């Protein structure tokens, strides 16, 4: 009897953590370069199909890497990648990757993200001095007409090995298999919007809430059965 209650409890708890992910997506509905994510539970194939307990499921965070739409900002240092690829950012913990191309300059004239990490070009950091900055559609950065660097844009064969690290950054493990991207295309003066779709999230939220409700009903029913059983058994005795 109690075993069944446990199953319902663990299912309800899973719904609670799924809701955390939906909420995080919604909070980032307006964050440039943000990629929506979903928590799912995958049953391990080797487990007994009859065992419906929480221990036979692995939580997996799926990140939707589909592109967001491009929004015009007019700022020459806002860059959006059109199509595949990620900008390469140098942080104190190593290289990180992002789709958020909202850049600025630091006191040395280096191209940095809004959190202050250097944006890497094909030949390392990009230092810009001059009065007119232009970023071409191929990612070439020029100051006053002369090229000072080219934005490094990479892609990954296995994107599911990318892990989020906050501030729009992804960390890639060796399993992600970095792949060179031929002819990346960027648009200066644009930012990629968040790819969170409010409708999807709403539906997910309704689903979560109703399933949660159902699991609680199961718990109630079971405890009611328990109560009935004990009271009737007591009469028999």
């Amino acid at each position, binding site marked *: 009897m109690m075993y069944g209650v446990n199953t319902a409890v663990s299912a309800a708890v899973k719904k*609670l*953590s799924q*809701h*955390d*992910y*939906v*909420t*995080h997506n*919604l*909070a*980032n*509905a*307006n*964050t*440039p370069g*943000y990629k929506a*994510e979903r*928590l799912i539970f995958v049953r*391990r194939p080797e487990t007994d199909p009859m065992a419906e307990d929480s*221990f*036979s499921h*692995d*939580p*997996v*965070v799926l990140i939707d890497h589909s592109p967001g739409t491009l929004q015009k900002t*007019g*700022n*020459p*240092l806002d860059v959006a990648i059109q199509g595949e690829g990620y900008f390469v950012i140098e942080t104190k913990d190593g290289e990180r990757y992002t789709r*958020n191309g*909202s850049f*600025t*300059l*630091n*006191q040395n*004239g280096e191209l940095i993200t*809004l*959190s202050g990490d250097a944006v890497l070009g094909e030949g390392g950091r990009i230092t*810009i*001095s*001059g*009065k*007119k*900055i232009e970023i071409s559609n191929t990612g070439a950065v020029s*100051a*006053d007409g002369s090229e000072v660097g080219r934005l490094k844009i990479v892609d990954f064969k296995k994107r599911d090995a990318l*892990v*989020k*690290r*906050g*501030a*729009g950054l992804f960390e890639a493990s060796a399993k992600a298999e970095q792949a060179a991207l031929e002819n990346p295309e960027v648009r200066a003066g644009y930012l990629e919007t968040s790819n969170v779709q*409010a409708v999807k999230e*709403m539906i997910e*939220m309704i689903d979560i*809430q109703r399933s949660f*409700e159902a699991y*609680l009903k199961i*718990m*109630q029913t079971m405890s009611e059965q328990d109560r009935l059983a004990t009271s009737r058994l007591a009469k028999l005795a």
Partner: protein
Amino acid sequence: MIRSLYTAATGMLAQQINQDVVANNLANVQTPGFKSSRAEFQDLMYQVSRQAGVGTTSGTALPLGMEVGLGSKLTSIQKTFTQGDYQQTGNRFDWAIEGDGFFQVDDGNGKTLYTRAGSWKISKDLYLVNSEGLKLTPEVTVPAGTVTFTIDAGGTWTAKDKAGTTLSTGRLELAKFANPAGLTNLGRNLYARTDGSGDPVTGNPDTEGFGTISQTFLEMSNVNVVDEMVQMIVGQRAYEINSKAIQTADNMLQLVNNLKR
């Protein structure tokens, strides 16, 4: 559960700031030389709720960790330095910059500030100043007895008297920044340099990279009401949906509380 309540709150807070920025833009739709701002967000750090590679009860290791995000935060409010529309005013001391560059004014303490609002007045000591009384640099004098005052596209200005004799002349200089979006906004249409904007490069109007001067015109605000309206709708809906997430969390908590009667 409590986590998602706070996560949604960060989302609501972000949208609130977004609305503040939009409201400020709309309030300045008629401010000459005003440049619209945009609030910019980032996702917050992720909390590791399950490490990658940890053994499970069935003896296998989790391939990936489970990291839950905690919401969003404001990273910066950036100015957009696109060109505003021009309005003809007929006033000879109203100058608009067509193209890139800023007018330079002296803040009275020797520090140079920058502005796009070219609506000048004559001070008591016959210099051109902005409406705050800050002197345009390099100085422009309008001697007593000036009848005609002209400035050409290249910034060369001439003050002449009734007889047509030149009383004073000079050439205006503009300043440019590699990254104008990095300037700090001091309000009153004034900007100051920061590390993010880089050092100013000065030059005459109508020379390479600098805009030209149009006399008797003012540059209007570059706020686009339609864009702001769209931004406002998006912001409001995002705010709403974040509050729905709080409601959902609250409902689920309520259900739990009602389990025990």
